[in-house]
C-alpha cells in the first residue's frame, strides 16, 4: 500500500510537508496551543547555537566574500567594491561578525551646473585641474575619484530567556569623509516566538574635509578662473568666516528604529519597521554647484556659478513593510517602503523578489524594484539672476538651493536576477546582474536657451556581483 502524500492519510488535518522551519508557527487554532507550546519548547531545545556547541568540532566561521561592480552609462561613475565578512556563533548563542568593505570610485559625476548652448569650463574644487563640458551637454566633473575603506563589527547575544541584545560599530574613511557610528538594539520574543519586537538606537558622527575647503551656504564660484587658488571665490577673510569651514565640517546623525516581526502562519512572515532619524550639521555636497542664468535668455550671467546649500538639519521618517511568503518550495519577498523628510522629499519603494528553487540547491531569484520620489523643496536646476541670486550684492534670495539629481524628483526601476549554486561542504556561489534606470522629472519653467537642451538626462547603470560564501 502506498500513500502518495502524507496529508492524504487518515486523520491528517494538516500537512507535514514543509513543516520544518515553521515550528512555532502552527498557532492557527486554540486546539493547537499544545502543539505551539511544544514547538516553542523544541525550538529552544534544538537552538542552532546549541547544536554547534555540543559538536566535537569548534563553532565555525561563516565567511562571505563578494565583488560588486557598478557602472553608470555614458562614462559616468564606476564603483568596484570588494566585500569580505565573517560571522561566528558560539555555543552560548553569541554571534560575532566582522565586515570589511573597500570601494574604488572613478568616473564622472554631474557637478550640478545646467547645460549651455556653448562649451563651459570649470575648475575642480581643489583648483589644480580644469575640465570643459561641450555645448549642450550636462556638465560632469571627470575627476570623481575616491577610495573608501569601511570596517563594521557586530556582537549579538541572548539577554535573559526571550531577549537578544545587539551592538554594532562602523568606521568608514574616504579621502574627504570620515564616519563613525555606533548602535545598540534589543529584540524581545513574545507569543511563543511568533512575535518579535525590536528597538534599535544608532548614533553617527561624520567629518567632511573636502579638497579646497568646505563652503557652506550659497557662495559665488569662478569657473575657469585664473589663479584663483581654491577655485571658489570669496576666500578673503571677511565677515563670512562663520560660514566657511576651511578645516572641514561635521555632522551628527541619530536614528531610532522600532520593528515588529510577526509569524502570520507557517507560510507567511511579516515585518514592519518604523524609523525616525535626525541629522544636524553640514549637509552640503562640496562638489555640487548651481548655474546663475538670465531669466529670459537662459544663458550664464553675473557670478555664473555658486556653490550649493542645504539646510543644516534633516529629519527623516520611514515606514517599511516586508512580507516573506514561503510557497511549496519557492519564496516570495515583497516589501514596500515609504519615506519622507522635512526637506520635502517623499518616496515610495516597492521591491519584489521571487526565489525559484531549481532543484539540487540551485536557485534563481528575479528582482524588481520600483522607486518614485518627489523633489526636495530647495531642489532646482539653476538660479535666475535677480531672483534666486543677486550677483551685484553676491547674496541669495533663497535660504537653500541644490541641483543634485538625487534631491530632484525622479522615478527609477531596477530589474535583475540572482543565481545561487551550492558547492560542497556548505559553500555557495552567487552571481547577480541588475539593470537600473533613473528618469528625472522634467524641469518646468526653463528660460530661453535652456528650453532647447536636455536638462535632465536619464541615468542607466549596470551592477554585476559575484559572491562566494563558505564555512571556515
Amino acid at each position, binding site marked *: 500500500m502506498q500513500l502518495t502524500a*502524507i496529508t492524504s492519510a487518515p486523520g491528517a488535518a494538516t500537512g507535514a510537508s514543509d513543516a520544518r522551519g515553521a515550528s512555532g508557527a502552527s498557532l492557527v487554532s486554540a486546539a493547537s496551543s499544545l502543539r505551539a507550546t511544544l514547538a516553542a519548547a*523544541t525550538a529552544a531545545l534544538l537552538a542552532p547555537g546549541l547544536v554547534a556547541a555540543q559538536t566535537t568540532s569548534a563553532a565555525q566561521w561563516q565567511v562571505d566574500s563578494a565583488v560588486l561592480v557598478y557602472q553608470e552609462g555614458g562614462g559616468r561613475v564606476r564603483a568596484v567594491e570588494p566585500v569580505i565578512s565573517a560571522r561566528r556563533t558560539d555555543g552560548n548563542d553569541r554571534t560575532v561578525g566582522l565586515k570589511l568593505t573597500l570601494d574604488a570610485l572613478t568616473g564622472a559625476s554631474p557637478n550640478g551646473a545646467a547645460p549651455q548652448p556653448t562649451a563651459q569650463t570649470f575648475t575642480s574644487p581643489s583648483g589644480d585641474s580644469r575640465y570643459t563640458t561641450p555645448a549642450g551637454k550636462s556638465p560632469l566633473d571627470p575627476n570623481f575619484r575616491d577610495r573608501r575603506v569601511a570596517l563594521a563589527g557586530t556582537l549579538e547575544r541572548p539577554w535573559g530567556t526571550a531577549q537578544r541584545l545587539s551592538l554594532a560599530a562602523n568606521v568608514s574613511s574616504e579621502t574627504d569623509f570620515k564616519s563613525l557610528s555606533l548602535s545598540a538594539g534589543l529584540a524581545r520574543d513574545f507569543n511563543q516566538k511568533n512575535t518579535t519586537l525590536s528597538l534599535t538606537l544608532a548614533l553617527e558622527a561624520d567629518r567632511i574635509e573636502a579638497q579646497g575647503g568646505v563652503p557652506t551656504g550659497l557662495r559665488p564660484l569662478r569657473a575657469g578662473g585664473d589663479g584663483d587658488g581654491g577655485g571658489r571665490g570669496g576666500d578673503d577673510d571677511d565677515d563670512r568666516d562663520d560660514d566657511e569651514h576651511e578645516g572641514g565640517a561635521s555632522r551628527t546623525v541619530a536614528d531610532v528604529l522600532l520593528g515588529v516581526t510577526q509569524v502570520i502562519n507557517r507560510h507567511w512572515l511579516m515585518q514592519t519597521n518604523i524609523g525616525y532619524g535626525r541629522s544636524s550639521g553640514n549637509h552640503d555636497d562640496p562638489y555640487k554647484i548651481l548655474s546663475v542664468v538670465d531669466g529670459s535668455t537662459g544663458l550664464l550671467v553675473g557670478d555664473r556659478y555658486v556653490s550649493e546649500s542645504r539646510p543644516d538639519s534633516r529629519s527623516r521618517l520611514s515606514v517599511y513593510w516586508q512580507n516573506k511568503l514561503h510557497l511549496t518550495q519557492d519564496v516570495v519577498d515583497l516589501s514596500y517602503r515609504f519615506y519622507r523628510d522635512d526637506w520635502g522629499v517623499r518616496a515610495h519603494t516597492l521591491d519584489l523578489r521571487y526565489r525559484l528553487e531549481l532543484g539540487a540547491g540551485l536557485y534563481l531569484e528575479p528582482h524588481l524594484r520600483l522607486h518614485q520620489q518627489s523633489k526636495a523643496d530647495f531642489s532646482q536646476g539653476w538660479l535666475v539672476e535677480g531672483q534666486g541670486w543677486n550677483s551685484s550684492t553676491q547674496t541669495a534670495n533663497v535660504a537653500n538651493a541644490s541641483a543634485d539629481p538625487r534631491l530632484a524628483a525622479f522615478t527609477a526601476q531596477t530589474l535583475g536576477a540572482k543565481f545561487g549554486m551550492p558547492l560542497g561542504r556548505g559553500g555557495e556561489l552567487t552571481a547577480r546582474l541588475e539593470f537600473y534606470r533613473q528618469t528625472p522629472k522634467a524641469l518646468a519653467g526653463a528660460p530661453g536657451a535652456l528650453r532647447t537642451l536636455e536638462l535632465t538626462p536619464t541615468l542607466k547603470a549596470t551592477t554585476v556581483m559575484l559572491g562566494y560564501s563558505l564555512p571556515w
Partner: protein
Amino acid sequence: MAPQSLAAAGPNPPFTLQATASSWRGDFAAMASPCVLLVDGGGPDEARALVAQAQAEVQRIEHKFSRYRAGSVLAHWQAAQGEPVQVDDETAGLLDFAAQCHALSGGLFDISSGVLRAAWRFDGSSQLPDAGHVRALVARVGWPRVQWHRPWLRLPPGMELDLGGIGKEYAADRVLGLLMAQSTLPLLVNLGGDLVVSGPRADGSAWTVGIEGIAPVDSSPAAAALLSLRAGALATSGDARRFVLSDGVRYGHILDPRDGWPVRGAPRSVTVAAPTCTEAGLLSTLAMLQGAGAEAWLGEQAVPHWVLR
C-alpha cells in the same frame, strides 16, 4: 563532568556505506537500533564524512544520556545522593524541555517514571507484578519533587531520571541540524524508525519511507507501510511485541506515572508527523498515554497520524 575515556566509550564499530540509485546509504547501529543516513547526491567522500559525523553524534548522545552507562550524566546524578549537581547546557536544555512536557501533559509525561519498569516485564507473558511493589515504586516517581533550577539539579534520594523517552528523537534532530550545517545535500536521518528529512530530495520529489507498525490492520504487524515525506519528521511510539496478557487484558508497555500501571486501552503503536522528530516523538508518546482516547486526542492536535490497534 570529566571527559569520558575512550575505553569507556569503546571503539566505534564500523558503519557501512553503499550506493543506491541516486543516493548514498550509511548504516550503523546505535541506541539499540538500526540507524540509517541517506545522502541524496554528492560524492562518496562527502557521504562517508557525513555518515561518520552522524554516527559520532548519535554515539555521543547515547553515551552521555544512557541510563545503562557508568559514565553518563544520569549515573552521575544517581551517585550524587540528594546533593545538588551542576549540569551542562545541553542537558539543561533537555531538562527544561522535559519540564515543559510534564506541564503540557498534565503530569502524564514524566522523566522520573523510569523506576516503574523495575516492576514490569513486558515479555508477552501473563505475569502481573505485585501491587505493593508497584505502589512502592510510584512513591519514587514525580517530576515536581525534583528540584531543577537551571543549572542546578537536586534529585531526591531513591529517584531516577531517564531521558530515553526523548533521546532518540532528539538525536535525530541534532544529527540533521549538524549535517545540514556541513552540507546542502538532501538528507534523511532514521534512528530506529524515528526519522527526519532536510527537505525534498534533490530532484524535488518526496522521500519514500517504510514505517513498521502502521500497516493496515489486516496485514501482519511486521509489514511496513510506505509513506511519502517531503519535509519534517515521523516518530512512532509503542511496540506491538511488548505487552503482558493477563485474564484476557492486554497491558501495553506504556506506564501511567500516576499509578504505575500500564495505560488502559492504549494503541499498539502511534506514528505522528511533525516539523521535528522531537515534536513527533512527544506527540506520539502523549497520544499513547491517552489510552483509549488516543485517536480523539490526536484529532484535536490536528497532526497527521497513524494509529495501530
